[in-house]
C-alpha cells in the first residue's frame, strides 16, 4: 500500500488488526514522510531508529487486542518520555532526559503505540503561533510561511501533514483547539481532571490539560479513550466513570439543545467567521439539534483574567528552573548571580515576560488587586457556564477569531497575539471540555474551525455532536505537499 500515510488512525488500526498491514510497514511509511518533511520543522527530537526497531519487535509477537496496535506516534515535546530528551521548546531544558514517563504517554504505549519523536511547541506552551520555541518556527502545511497555531504547533502541523497518524497536545488557554483550527484538524481539550498531568511539563496547573489532535472525530474519540484515566500521581485527577468514547460514538444528536452565546460576536470579528458560525448553526439544525440563544455575560473578562491566573501559576511553576538540579546552567560569580544568569539566558522573551507578570501580580501589595480579583472573576465566568447549562446540553462557537496568520505578523504585539485565544480561554477557566472541528475555509483557502463546548465530564456528548456535524460539513483539507522537494 503506497498511500499508508493518507489513512486515518482508525483505518490503520483496522488494517493492522486484519493483518493487511504490519506495524513495520506503517512505521516505515510515517518515518519516511517525516524525514521528507524536515522543512516543516515539526519535530524537535526524532527517534526513528528506535521506532522502527519497536515496530519490528511488535510484528514478531503482535498483540492485536490492543487499541493502538503497533501504531507509530509522535507527541508534543511537553510530555516527559523516559530516556528521550524532553525540552518543552526551551533552551533551559535543551539537555533534559527524563528518567520517568508521563502517565498520558504511558497509557498510549500500554495500548501498543510506538514513539516516533517529540514535536515542536511554543516554549513552555506559552504562545499561539509556535514562534516562541527555542527550536524555531513550525510551518503550517496549508501554506508556506504560515503559522500552525500554538502552543501545540508541531503537533497540529504533523497531523495535518500526515507525519503521524494522530498525536497529543496540551491546552492551557487554547493550545490544542486553536492550532487544530489553523490546520484543518480536530482537537479536543478534555475536562480538567480527565487526563493526568503527571509528567507533563507544568505551565499553569489549574488550567493545563492534555488531549488528542486528530484527522477526524472518530480517531479523536479513540485516543481520548486511551489517555483519559484516573491517576493517583496527579492530585487533581478526578475519579469519574469514563466512557468508551469511540465505541459509544453516535451521530444521533436529535433533540440535543445547543446554545449560541451572543457575547462571542466580538467587535471586529471578520465576516467570514460570522458566516462560518451561521453555517455551523444550520449544520447543527440539520442534525436534529435544537438551537437556543444564551448569554455568557462575562466573556469579555476571560482574557484579562487568564493573563493574571496563567502567568501567576507559571511564575511559581517555573521557579524550579534554577540551573541546579537539571537543565541549562550559566556560570555566575555567586549563587544568586548564577540563578539570575541561568534564567535570563535559559528562558526566551515571552516566558520571561510571563514570569515577570506573574511575579508582579503575586507580589506584596498587589496580590488582592490582581490575583484575588482574577480568581473572583473566574468564579463569575464559571457561573455563566453553570447557568447556561441549565438550558442547554452544549455550546457552539467559532474556535478562533481569524484563520492562520503569517509567521512574524504578530510577534511584536503581545496583546494582539493573546486575542487569538478569546474563544478558547473561557473554557479552560471553567474547566470544561471543548472540541474544535474543521468547518470551512476563508477567502484565502485557509481552514476555519468551530468549537463545541460541553458540560464537565460530558466529552461523549460533544464528541457525538462533532461526529454528526463532521459528516454534514464534509470538510476537505487542501494540502499540496509544497514542502516536499
Amino acid at each position, binding site marked *: 500500500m503506497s498511500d499508508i500515510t493518507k489513512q486515518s488512525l482508525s483505518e490503520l488500526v483496522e488494517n493492522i488488526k486484519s493483518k493487511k498491514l504490519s506495524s513495520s510497514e506503517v512505521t516505515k511509511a510515517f518515518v519516511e514522510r517525516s524525514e521528507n518533511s524536515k522543512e516543516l520543522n515539526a519535530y524537535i527530537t526524532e527517534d526513528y531508529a528506535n521506532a522502527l526497531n519497536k515496530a519490528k519487535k511488535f510484528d514478531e509477537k503482535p498483540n492485536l487486542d490492543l487499541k493502538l496496535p503497533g501504531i507509530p506516534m509522535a507527541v508534543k515535546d511537553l510530555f516527559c518520555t523516559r530516556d528521550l530528551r524532553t525540552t518543552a521548546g526551551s533552551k533551559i531544558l535543551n*539537555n533534559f*532526559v527524563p*528518567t*520517568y514517563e508521563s502517565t498520558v504517554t504511558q497509557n498510549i504505549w500500554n495500548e501498543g503505540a510506538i514513539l516516533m519523536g517529540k514535536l515542536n511547541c511554543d516554549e513552555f506552551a506559552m504562545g499561539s503561533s509556535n514562534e516562541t520555541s527555542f527550536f524555531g518556527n513550525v510551518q503550517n502545511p496549508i501554506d508556506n510561511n504560515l503559522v500552525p497555531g500554538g502552543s501545540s504547533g508541531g503537533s497540529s502541523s504533523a497531523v495535518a501533514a500526515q507525519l503521524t497518524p494522530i498525536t497529543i497536545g496540551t491546552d492551557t488557554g487554547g493550545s490544542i483547539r486553536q492550532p487544530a483550527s489553523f490546520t484543518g484538524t480536530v482537537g479536543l481539550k478534555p475536562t*480538567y481532571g480527565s487526563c493526568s498531568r503527571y509528567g507533563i511539563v507544568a505551565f499553569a496547573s*489549574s488550567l493545563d490539560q492534555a488531549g488528542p489532535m486528530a484527522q477526524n472525530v472518530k480517531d479523536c474519540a479513540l485516543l481520548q479513550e486511551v489517555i483519559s484515566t484516573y491517576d*493517583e500521581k496527579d*492530585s*487533581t485527577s*478526578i*475519579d469519574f466513570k469514563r466512557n468508551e468514547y469511540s465505541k459509544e460514538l453516535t451521530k444521533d444528536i436529535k433533540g440535543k439543545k445547543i446554545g449560541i452565546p451572543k457575547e462571542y460576536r466580538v467587535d471586529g470579528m471578520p465576516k467570514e467567521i460570522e458566516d462560518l458560525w451561521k453555517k455551523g448553526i444550520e449544520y447543527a439544525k440539520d442534525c436534529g439539534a435544537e438551537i437556543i440563544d444564551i448569554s455568557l455575560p*462575562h466573556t*469579555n*473578562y476571560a*482574557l*484579562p*483574567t487568564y*493573563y493574571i491566573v496563567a502567568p501567576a501559576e507559571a511564575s511559581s511553576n517555573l521557579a524550579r528552573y*534554577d540551573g*541546579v*538540579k*537539571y*537543565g*541549562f*546552567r550559566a556560570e*555566575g*560569580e*555567586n*549563587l544568586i*548571580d*548564577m*540563578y*539570575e*544568569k541561568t*534564567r*535570563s539566558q535559559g528562558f526566551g522573551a515571552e516566558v*520571561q*515576560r510571563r*514570569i*515577570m*507578570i506573574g*511575579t*508582579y501580580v503575586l*507580589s506584596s501589595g498587589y496580590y488582592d488587586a*490582581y490575583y*484575588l*480579583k482574577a*480568581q*473572583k*472573576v473566574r*468564579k*463569575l465566568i*464559571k457561573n455563566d457556564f453553570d447557568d447556561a447549562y441549565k438550558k442547554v446540553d452544549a455550546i457552539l462557537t467559532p474556535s478562533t477569531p481569524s484563520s492562520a496568520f503569517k509567521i512574524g505578523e504578530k510577534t511584536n*504585539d*503581545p*496583546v494582539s497575539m*493573546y486575542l487569538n485565544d478569546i474563544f478558547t480561554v473561557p473554557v479552560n477557566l*471553567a*474547566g470544561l471540555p471543548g472540541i474544535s472541528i474543521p468547518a470551512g475555509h476563508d477567502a484565502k483557502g485557509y481552514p476555519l474551525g468551530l468549537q463545541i463546548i460541553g458540560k*464537565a465530564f460530558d466529552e461523549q456528548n460533544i464528541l457525538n455532536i462533532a461526529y454528526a456535524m463532521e459528516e454534514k460539513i464534509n470538510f476537505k483539507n487542501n494540502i499540496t505537499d509544497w514542502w516536499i522537494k
Partner: protein
Amino acid sequence: MSIDLKTIKHISKLSRISVDEKKAEKLAVDLNSIFDFIEKLNELKTDNVEPLTSVAETTLKLRSDEVKSKNLRDQVIKNSPKENEDYFVVPKVIE
C-alpha cells in the same frame, strides 16, 4: 497605571532574571500594554464573590503514607548540570 523601570528592576530581582537597561525598557513597554488590558477587570464589582481556586469540585484524596519508590539517587542526580558523586554542586555559599 504605569510600571516604571524601578518596578521592572524590582520584579526582575524577585523573579531571579537579570535584565539590562535595554531589556528593562522593552519589558516596561510590554508589561504596560498587558496591564492596560488587564485593568478591564476593575469594571466589575466582586466584593461578594467567592474566589475560585479550583474548578475540580472534589476534596483531595487521602492515601496511606508508604514508600513506593526507592533508590532513585542516580535518577535524581542524572540530569544535574554539575555532578559530584552524591550531590548537586553550586557556587560557594558560605565563606
